[in-house]
């Protein structure tokens, strides 16, 4: 395990959970600095995400929440299982940097206790399909060797016929998955990019080949796979770059067992621009022509997005025509112009993805 965690902060109430002791035991108790204040008012150094610290938290909020989506664009109707926030990787474009006032890696150690309530919620709506993921506010597997999320969640989801769990990652931390008994209704998905972006902007993340080797292993072990080209980023020779990634995918995975593949051009809250420039002075992710979108986020000027999606669609469908290709947070007209069809609204995209779930599981 390569975590570089220099200290563990156990917030008030977290000490009573078994997971806290397990994590501390794994890291090495000598690194623990005892209890932290539940509200840390000490500001970190300028925009430091304090990724060397792990905060174990008895999270009082909702664990399962619908993805808020974004105004004016079609969303996928996803549910977020909120297991923690922040991530040991340091991608220059990461939205989580905007929350630098809540630094450190944060793990909610009371997840296991909350699972029965979540199960009750899912079980009383059997007619509905819940697509649930843990990878919105953290990487789903980056801390898995330490926290054991896969151990906790895989059997929980395997037992439910109306839900699937998607574990989104950029890592190759799949040992927990490979040793798990239950693999049903689990989607392991990788965030991919061009080699250029992966090498220059995804700091601390394994390279594309390592990610795809991990995907290959998971697929061989019976897991359904997902892929997310999100964010797609314009850069010199981006077409060739993304083609190289597709070629690598072709070498590594069987496209027939890919449940879905999303595309999303880079977008960011305006506040993030200054943070990215400060934290990653050598980045090129802000170089494109970004305009203010309907939701206030900065997005590539529409014809750029249409071109990127159109290119990816063409190449991906040449590889395999039934990849469950969809766009993340895009408008109806961009769908039409780039993919040649549109789910029209969020409900339509939800239906499309639910149908993929029904077909795969």
């Amino acid at each position, binding site marked *: 395990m390569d975590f570089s965690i220099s200290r563990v902060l156990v917030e008030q109430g977290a000490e009573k959970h078994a997971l806290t002791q397990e994590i501390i035991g794994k890291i090495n108790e000598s690194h623990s600095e005892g209890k932290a204040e539940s509200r840390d008012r000490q500001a970190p150094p300028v925009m430091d995400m304090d990724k060397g610290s792990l905060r174990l938290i008895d999270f009082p909020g909702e664990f399962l929440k619908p993805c808020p989506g974004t105004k004016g664009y079609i969303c996928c109707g996803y549910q977020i299982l909120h297991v923690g926030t922040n991530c040991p990787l340091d991608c220059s474009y990461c939205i989580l940097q905007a929350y630098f006032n809540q630094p450190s890696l944060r793990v909610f150690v009371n997840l296991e206790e909350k699972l029965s309530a979540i199960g009750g919620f899912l079980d009383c709506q059997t007619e509905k399909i819940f697509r649930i993921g843990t990878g919105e506010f953290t990487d789903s597997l980056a801390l898995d060797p330490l926290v054991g999320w896969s151990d906790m969640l895989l059997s929980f989801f395997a037992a439910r016929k109306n839900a699937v769990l998607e574990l989104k990652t950029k890592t190759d931390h799949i040992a927990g998955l490979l040793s798990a008994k239950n693999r049903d209704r689990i989607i392991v998905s990788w965030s991919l990019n061009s080699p250029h972006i992966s090498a220059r902007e995804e700091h601390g993340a394994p390279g594309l080949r390592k990610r795809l080797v991990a995907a290959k292993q998971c697929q061989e072990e019976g897991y359904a796979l997902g892929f997310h080209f999100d964010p797609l980023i314009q850069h010199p020779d981006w077409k060739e770059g993304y083609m190289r990634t597709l070629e690598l995918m072709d070498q590594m995975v069987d496209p027939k067992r890919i449940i879905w593949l999303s595309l999303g051009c880079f977008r960011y809250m305006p506040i993030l621009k200054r943070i990215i420039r*400060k934290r990653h002075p050598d980045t090129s992710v*802000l*170089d494109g*022509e970004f305009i203010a979108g309907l939701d206030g986020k900065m*997005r590539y*000027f529409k*014809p750029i997005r249409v071109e990127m999606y159109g290119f990816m669609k063409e190449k991906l469908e040449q590889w395999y025509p039934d990849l469950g290709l969809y766009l993340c947070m895009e408008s109806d007209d961009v769908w039409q112009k780039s993919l040649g069809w549109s789910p029209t609204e969020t409900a339509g995209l939800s239906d499309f993805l639910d149908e993929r779930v029904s077909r795969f599981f």
Partner: protein
Amino acid sequence: MEGRSQYSSGVAFLSSMDDQKRKPYGLIWVELSEVDWTPGPCCMSFGFDLNPLKRSIAKVGLINPPFVAREDKGRVQVVAGYRRLMAIKSLCWNKVHCWDVSDLSPIERLHLNFYDNLTTRDFNHVEIGMVLRRLASHLPKEEIVENVMPLLGLGSHEPTLDVYLALDGLENPIKSALAAQSLSLRTLKALLDTDPDTRLALLQWITNLNLNMNQQLQLIDYTIDICEKEKKRAEALFGEEAFLFILEDQRANRPQKAKQLLELLRARRYPLLIRAEKLFLRKVACLRLPKGVSIKHPPYFEDPHYRLEIAFRNGRALTEKLKALFGLEDLQKMGDPWSED
């Protein structure tokens, strides 16, 4: 920490001193040649106009003596009344009566000057920065945020404090522009993210063209983006012929030059968008719309809907314009300008 409890309890230091027990300050003669004129640890004056004070002193003399402290080497440190002493110096006086506060500790001297100024005048942004920075070397940050910032008319907001604390290290032309309100604090915040050469290059445009706050922010945003993307220094960018032409153009006034500058930068930053806007305008112009009818594109073409506006006096005029619109064959070709590019 001296002063902490006084701020925390909401009672200012000087008023909390027991005036009855305090040793009265003594008036002393100070030779102006003894005064340390560099802005000392208590100084909170920047960007001021001495002339009104000089006129007043020349007319009625010095009404309120400054406060000074004698230092070990015989130099005189100005505690309060820096401007008065500067005025007196420029009036060529040799010596002046001052209150001697040598017995006060550094934080007591600082408080004395702070409250003396607070009740008699407004601070400009640079001076607020001086006050906060000087107090920050004696008081914890939280105390400054919670208790001092409100006294200066500021919200208790740590990032704002950080901006003011960063002022001290800025170049004098930047500080002067800020004190003179040619630069807003928001603009300054954006400038803090740039290096000194870039800041000064941007300041030249801001002051030369008298840019308003929105224009200042646009200028900074475009410039940083272009320089980052093109791996170019701001001085090199602004040294290009197109920019020099704007500066040297004798026919344009300052607002026109400001517009030209921002348009030039925008076109460089958003080439596809600008091209789309031009194509759109050309297409609309070719339609030969009836008088009082216009078609507009959504901001940045992001929303898929275009907008048709018809100005009319009455139903008959509207009917005529609609008929004319229906008769326009090219209207059906309207669409995203880049699609037919």
